[in-house]
């Protein structure tokens, strides 16, 4: 199945993959900033920025940059959380949505749009704040359910997550039933996801939250490697499994909550990016975590670029696009898994 490699350490291959991805991201950012309804040649962007004036400068700094950087941040946060959660649940088919953040955030958004349309908590930030808090609340609830005297049970967390998703689906149905046409449209577009509303004003408060999430998650690489052997074996190697779980779930909930509050339900990046990195280089979390984040950022920027340009002058919701590409890819992963495990 896999041919023997000359050395089992594979460090060279990991480093090369990281380097390639670190070069890919600025390329994607330049393309994303340049192309669109008002095209700007990507190679001229540094010159325009240095000049600091003109229409092109305005378009770049007021519209394109917050959008492209927002997409990159959302993609990176989703992919990082996805990589960590796949390691934590020791299941490569885990999506960050499984810890309840996404559905909690959707419910939060629905509550703010439909039930409390008049409430202007922090003005323009209401919807995003509700989505963020809804996501954290849902994860906290699942965490409480999964607590047992024998430690936090990851399987219980997953099962409770499925129950929560079903319940949230029903409650969203109630919100849809209660909503008027305008609210319905806003809610639908929010759940489909997109970066068109990302401005500096949203990006700045999201930045510290995203950084905090990364600071919580990136140092978990070594313990996650040990966890691949099993929870007990990780303990034998000096890992405190409860501390690892707490920190991984908190960091992921923060990251995904921030991402969802910024861009709504952009799916599949958190699932696909870690996979692509494992195919490119390997599963070592020390390289996988930063690698998946870089790759997720690039994927989100490219997805946003396609969403803006494919059906121009109209714009496709990014969530639709990522699902269109991510869905078949997920099916491919399942088929691969089937082949490997059941030899069929």
């Amino acid at each position: 199945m896999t041919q023997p490699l000359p050395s089992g350490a594979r460090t060279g291959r990991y480093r090369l993959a990281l380097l390639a991805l670190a070069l890919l991201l600025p390329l994607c950012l330049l393309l994303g900033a340049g192309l669109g309804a008002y095209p700007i040649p990507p190679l001229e962007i540094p010159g325009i920025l240095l000049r600091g004036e003109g229409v092109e400068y305005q378009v770049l700094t007021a519209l394109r940059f917050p959008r492209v950087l927002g997409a990159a941040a959302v993609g990176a946060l989703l992919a990082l959380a996805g990589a960590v959660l796949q390691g934590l649940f020791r299941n490569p088919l885990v999506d960050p949505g499984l810890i309840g953040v996404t559905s909690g955030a959707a419910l939060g958004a629905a509550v703010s749009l439909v039930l409390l349309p008049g409430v202007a908590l922090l003005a323009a930030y209401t919807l995003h704040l509700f989505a963020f808090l809804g996501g954290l609340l849902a994860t906290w609830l699942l965490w409480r359910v999964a607590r047992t005297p024998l430690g936090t049970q990851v399987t219980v967390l997953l099962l409770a997550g499925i129950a929560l998703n079903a319940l949230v689906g029903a409650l969203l149905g109630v919100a849809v039933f209660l909503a008027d046409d305008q609210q319905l449209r806003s809610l639908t577009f929010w759940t489909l996801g997109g970066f068109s509303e990302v401005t500096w004003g949203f990006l700045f408060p999201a930045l510290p939250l995203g950084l905090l999430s990364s600071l919580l998650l990136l140092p978990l690489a070594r313990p996650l490697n040990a966890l691949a052997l099993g929870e007990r074996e990780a303990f034998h190697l000096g890992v405190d499994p409860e501390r690892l779980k707490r920190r991984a779930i908190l960091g992921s909930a923060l990251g995904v909550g921030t991402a969802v509050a910024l861009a709504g339900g952009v799916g599949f990046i958190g699932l696909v990016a870690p996979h692509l990195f494992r195919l490119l280089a390997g599963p070592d979390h020390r390289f996988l975590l930063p690698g998946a984040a870089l790759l997720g950022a690039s994927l989100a920027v490219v997805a946003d670029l396609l969403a803006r340009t494919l059906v121009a002058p109209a714009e496709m919701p990014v969530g639709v696009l990522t699902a269109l590409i991510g869905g078949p890819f997920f099916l491919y992963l399942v088929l691969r898994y089937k082949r490997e495990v059941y030899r069929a």
Partner: protein
Amino acid sequence: MLEARGLGYRLGERWLLRGVDLRVAPGEFWAILGPNGSGKTTLLRLLAGDLRPTEGEVALLGVPLSAYSPEGLARRRAVLSQFRELTFPFTAYEVAFLGRLPHLQGRREGPEDHGKVREALERARALPLQGRVFLTLSGGEAMRVETARLLAQQPELFLLDEPTNHLDPRYTLELLALFRALATSGKGVVAVLHDLNLAALYADRLLLKEGRPLALGTPEEVLRPELLEEAYQVPFRVLGGPKGPRLVLALPAEVVGDG
């Protein structure tokens, strides 16, 4: 080096084991024997610090297990468990390297860590496997890589849960000889074993139990037919003699009657 006093573990109303005392000195290879369900694995998990005893205490190098941090414990004892699963396609080398983890707290890995992993792979005769994906290894190959991981961990105490399960005779003897050599060089080894004769060949001290301890001592003291019959509820016979190794064999009652 490892000391257990009045160890007991209760799950609900049932005592899985009770009244276990043992004292492993450096240089000793201990074998824990007993019928299925006699709490051998539970005892090993208590000694490893996975489980907290309901009564009694375990101390490693004079310090109670509960006083250790997980990393501190991992620098002093390594565990080979029966249960092997791996989620992602790590290579054999990457799995063996995990043994260095407790020694890497707050620092980057250096060439000396990789040197130690290579040395461990060499000693466990797993060096040619290092580039293979762990999940594609056979049972015997995987066990050699796991052994290398334990060696890379450089502990004082090795705890082994039925290490020879699924191994053919050659790997079984190689593996036990390796841990025998480690014990002789001053480490402590405690292994749960099913094969009484292998235990007699490689271990200094045997603990025979069925919930409560039945006998504790040298192979000659413990592997006596009347004790074994009490533990396993089948007749036993001693084979071999003063010249060759002394072997014990479980036999069906009718065969014993004929002899």
